[in-house]
């Protein structure tokens, strides 16, 4: 007995050495089992993903509360539940309840989504007008359309974690429902906490999608030359395009540089594979300069508080035909 007790520390050490390499011994049957499972899954049509609300530890109230707390916002709990309820889910519930003969009315998020959408549009328009003072209204409209588009809003709401909380008929939820839910959340926030908090929410999640993006990309201009001449005609100036540089004229990789001069002072330059392309790019650069959105513009300010007030002084009116 004493002999065993004397050698216990050595035995323990021996055992411990075997236990340090934990992750390496995987049983021989693991790989074939997993392969067989995958084969059976594929036969039945692929891996099935179940929503989190079918798991045992799902607590919708807790999830809604946590959602609000995560965003540091105070939501009215009924409004939030209403915001997450989709029309398809309400229809499904009503059908189920008809069979079971009891009546719990669930409100869907349509009205909240409409309120939210109007608010988002108005606020984004306001914000963009303040932050890009010289950009024409058509361009702002295009940027706004991009920011309120289904894919962008669906992406935002997916990353906010609404995918598992949304009450909808099918899983996984499609983009339209995700976008709708986001608008409904904004509507709910508007009703619960007021305009300023909702404005900050939209600013922090939607408008920041513009970070690092070239704002001119969202507004495709078909004929920059005519647009430029029209704008400068109002100020009574004529543009003189001149070929400033060229390289490898007769080759496939020819490069031309065209400069636009107004009153013998340079306005912008553009490069291109042919003279026409270079002239068009020079016109585009000139337009960017006029609208204040060149490559080296100051980054968009994402920290304007409250509802900003734009002053529409130096904005160019591109006449909508």
């Amino acid at each position: 007995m004493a002999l065993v007790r004397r050698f216990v520390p050595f035995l323990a050490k021996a055992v411990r050495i075997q236990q340090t390499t934990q992750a390496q011994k995987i049983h021989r049957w693991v790989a074939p089992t997993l392969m067989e499972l995958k084969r059976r899954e594929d036969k039945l049509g692929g891996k099935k993903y179940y929503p989190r609300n079918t798991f045992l530890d799902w607590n919708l109230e807790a999830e809604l509360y946590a959602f609000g707390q995560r965003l540091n916002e105070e939501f009215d709990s009924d409004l939030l539940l209403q915001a997450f309820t989709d029309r398809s889910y309400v229809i499904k519930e009503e059908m189920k309840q008809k069979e079971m003969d009891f009546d719990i009315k669930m409100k869907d998020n349509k009205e909240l989504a409409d309120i939210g959408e109007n608010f988002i549009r108005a606020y984004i328009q306001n914000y963009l007008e303040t932050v890009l003072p010289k950009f024409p209204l058509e361009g702002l409209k295009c940027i706004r359309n991009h920011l309120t588009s289904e894919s962008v809003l669906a992406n935002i709401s997916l990353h906010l974690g609404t995918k598992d909380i949304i009450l909808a008929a099918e899983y996984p939820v499609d983009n339209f429902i995700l976008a709708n839910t986001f608008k409904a959340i904004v509507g709910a926030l508007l009703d619960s906490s007021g305009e300023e908090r909702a404005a900050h929410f939209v600013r922090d999640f939607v408008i920041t999608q513009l970070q690092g993006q070239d704002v001119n990309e969202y507004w495709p201009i078909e004929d920059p030359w005519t647009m430029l001449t029209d704008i400068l005609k109002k100020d009574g100036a004529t543009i003189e395009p001149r070929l400033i540089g060229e390289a490898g004229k007769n080759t496939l990789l020819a490069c031309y540089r065209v400069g636009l001069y107004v009153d013998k002072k340079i306005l912008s330059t553009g490069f291109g594979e042919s003279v026409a392309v270079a002239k068009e790019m020079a016109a585009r650069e000139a337009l960017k300069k006029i609208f204040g959105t060149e490559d080296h513009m100051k980054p968009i300010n994402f920290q304007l508080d409250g509802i900003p007030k734009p002053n529409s002084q130096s904005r160019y009116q591109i006449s909508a035909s």
Partner: protein
Amino acid sequence: MSAAKRVQQWATFARTWHIFDCKWQDPYDSANVIKKYLMGLHKPIYHPMNDSGDVVVCINSKEIALRGDEWRKRAYFHHTGYPGGASWTLAWELHNKDPTLIIKKAVYRSMKGNLQRRHTMQRLFIYPGEEVPHDVMQNVTNQIRQLRFVPTRLDHIPEEVTKTYPKVMDFPEDYVLK
């Protein structure tokens, strides 16, 4: 990629056509300068894997000036690949046969012996005289400065200028020049 970015990249990597007048220049020194432009080592955006070299057009390659005795003594080796196909050609013989070869070989030798060398050499155009094809000349947009100063020959200066040029001293009339 937006149009502006695409056009910016096109302009950054555009290939410039340079012209170099080899008149009275040492081919091996000028080869060092030419190879820099051919490989793209004159650009801050250089990368060996990126084909960032420019085109160089050499003119007047028959007026090239080798140092010292080299015209008589420098020999160029050539092997046809067949047995007994080795030949050593002297510089003046080679120059008579093909006036562009000396500068071409000089540039080829100045580059590192890697697989890109032959490809880069294709960017070099050498003409023996002043005549350059019109489309090639139209592409050229830069001239590389010569290394050695090329003075104007006395017989190329008009006679009135030489006669009326102010003199510091002159020999007396009855002085006999040997």
